[in-house]
Structure formats: C-alpha cells, structure tokens
C-alpha cells in the first residue's frame, strides 16, 4: 500500500528524517509518536505524497485513494460544509455524492449546520468537517496527523468509532501525542526521539 525505504528529508541544513523505513499494508495501522519537532508531520506528508524525500524511496498508491488530514482541516472557510464536500466530491468523482455527504455530515454531527459558513465554526467543528472530507472518497490509505486535536469527547468518540470501522480494511498512518487512544488498533509503531 505505502512503503518508505531509508527516507531522509532535509530542510536546508536541518535533517528532519534520517533513513526512516515504514511500510503499511491494507488492514495495517502505523502509529507514529514523538515529541514536537521530531519529524512526525514531515513523515506523514511524505507518506501522503505531499512532500518528496531528499533521499530514499517512497512507493505510494494512486493519489485518488489517499485521504490526508494535516494540522488544518483543508476546507474553505467562506463555504458551507455542503459546498466544501460537494466540491471535493466532484474532484474525487465520488459516486452517489449527495447520499455519501449526507451520511458523513450526520455521522459527525454537522448536518444541522450544513448550510452555515465554516468561518462561524469552532476549531473542533472544523476538525470534524476535515474528517468528513478525508473519508468522503473512502480512502484505502488514511494519513492522519493529530486527528484528535481540538475534538471534544463526543467528537473523539466518533473518530474512535470511525477508526474501528476503517482500520481493518484500509491502511492507516496516524500521528498522535495520545497513543493510548488508538493503541488497540496499532499493528506497527514508529517512535521518534
């Protein structure tokens, strides 16, 4: 599904990743932990195909099958949840788009605010919408960088339940400061010092 071999990433003189190996197959769950600035986000961006490594090899699936959530929810603030998801649904050629969008908005508790602009949302609501966007096209590789950030307990429980559903069939790479939350799902672990 995704394989990184001896991946090194430098930003100028600073080496952020040093010959990192990682491989996740469908049904695999790679849990990435480490302190701030240790390279978690950089590794996840490389594994999502957003950044190229300075050296080493990365084998990625087709980008249509990748779902990525970074530190931002990657949605337009001036648009509503419906407009955002319809835009990305079009770009990802999601079949039966309206039904899929409705189901996700219902699941993440955003159906009642589907016509409100995202700029009026709290950070946690935007994070929920970001998760809807990631799951919209049913990715077979989900790359999630601190997905529990800003979520309240109800939102975190929804994400827990969603991960329980997708983890057995998709490849998941998840970075978190709270590994206990997803420890039950992890099939592999990568701890940065």
């Amino acid at each position, binding site marked *: 599904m995704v394989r990184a071999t001896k991946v090194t990433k430098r930003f100028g003189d600073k080496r952020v990743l040093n010959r990192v190996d990682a491989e996740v197959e469908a049904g695999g769950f790679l849990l990435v932990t480490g302190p701030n600035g240790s390279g978690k986000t950089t590794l996840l961006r490389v594994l*999502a*195909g*957003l950044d*190229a490594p300075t050296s080493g090899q990365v084998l990625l699936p*087709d*980008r*249509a099958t*990748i779902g*990525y959530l*970074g*530190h*931002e*929810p*990657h*949605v*337009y*603030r*001036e*648009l509503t949840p419906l*407009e955002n998801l319809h*835009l*990305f649904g*079009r*770009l*990802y*050629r999601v079949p039966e788009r309206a039904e899929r969008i409705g189901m996700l908005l219902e699941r993440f508790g955003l159906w009642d605010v589907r016509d409100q*602009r995202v700029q009026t949302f709290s950070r946690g609501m935007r994070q929920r919408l970001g998760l809807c*966007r990631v799951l919209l096209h049913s990715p077979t590789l989900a790359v999630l960088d601190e997905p529990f950030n800003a979520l309240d307990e109800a939102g975190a429980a929804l994400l827990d339940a969603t991960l329980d559903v997708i983890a057995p069939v998709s490849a998941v790479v998840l970075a978190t400061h709270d590994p206990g939350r997803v420890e039950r799902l992890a099939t592999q672990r990568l701890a940065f010092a």
Partner: protein
Amino acid sequence: MRFFSDVAALARKDLLIELRAKETVPAMLLFVLSALTIFHFAVPAGASAKISIGLLWTAIVFTALLGLTRAFVPEREQGVFDALVLAPSDRSAIWAAKALSVLAFLGLAELVALPAFGLFFSGVGWHGVAAFALADIGICAVGTLTGAMAVAGRARELILPLLFLPLAIPVVAAGVGASIAGGGKYLAFLALYDAVFALLSWGAFEYVVAQT
C-alpha cells in the same frame, strides 16, 4: 470533459468565495481608481496622450498584481492547497480555474477603470480595448503560475512581483503600442504571448506544484 468540469467547479468556488468575502475586487477597484486619480493630479494638463496611456497600463498591471497576490490566499490560509493537490483531477485544472477567476476580477476592475480613465484623460480606442482584453489573458495565465510559485515561500509578497513583473514587460510594451499606434501587429503579438505563456503555464503547473 473531466478537465473542464473540474475547472468549472473550482472557478465557481473562487467566484462564490469572492462574492461572500468581498476582499479582492473591492481592493482592486479602490486601487485602480486611486492610482488614476493620483495620475490625474500628477500629470500636467495638456500632457501627451502617450504619457497618460502609459500610466493607465501601469495602473492596470499593478491592479492585476494586487489580484494575483490574493489569488491563493483562501487555499493557503486553511491548507486547502494540500487537499486540492491530492485530488485525482488534472492539477492544471487548479491553474486554469484560478486564472479564469483572476481574469474575471481584472475584467471587472477594467470595466470601471477604462471609463474613469476617459473621464480623467481621454477615451481608449477599440484597439486599446482589444489590447487590454488580450493582455488580461496573458497576465492572468502567467501571473497565476507565478502566484502558485510564490504561495509556498515565506516571502511570498516579495517573490510574486519579482517573478511576475519581468514577465509582464512584453505585455505592457505591446499593449501601449496597440493603444497608441493601433495596428494588428501589436495585437498579434499579444495573442501570440497569450498562446505561448498559457501553454507554458499549463504545462509547468504540475511541476511547480510538485516542487512546492
């Protein structure tokens, strides 16, 4: 067909965002009207029409630069560029849609600027109008590419003018020539510039995205 439907969806999104945020077009209008007003008082009465036409082109190029500076702000602020780049659509659709929306904003600014110029100085002839229409296409095509190059950099407000303005020199030269002397050769040059730089920008966008 998929390419055009993606371009339409992305351009519609840009227009909707501008309709709601009302940030770019009002700023462009205010800038171009302010610039023309300043030129009106700065240029002595009875000055050559060649000077005033040159000033109009200068005002339009910097108005376009203002629009281009704002072009990728919605994508940058919420990290949406990452999500767009990962979508399985042709990445050059992002460029085409953004160029079309900036073209619409610039066209709106010119709809106000050209009559205002006629009020302050003298009217712009049909050759001039045709030159602006052709120049807009080239400016938006190449400006959107340079805007995408600048969006990833820390000093993006500095980088965009440094990349864009040298590439706009031929457009201004031919545009002023068409506005003053008329004649098909300047318009033909602008059309050729549009074709060449639109193709180059379309082809280069994928590479630019991969590098940023």
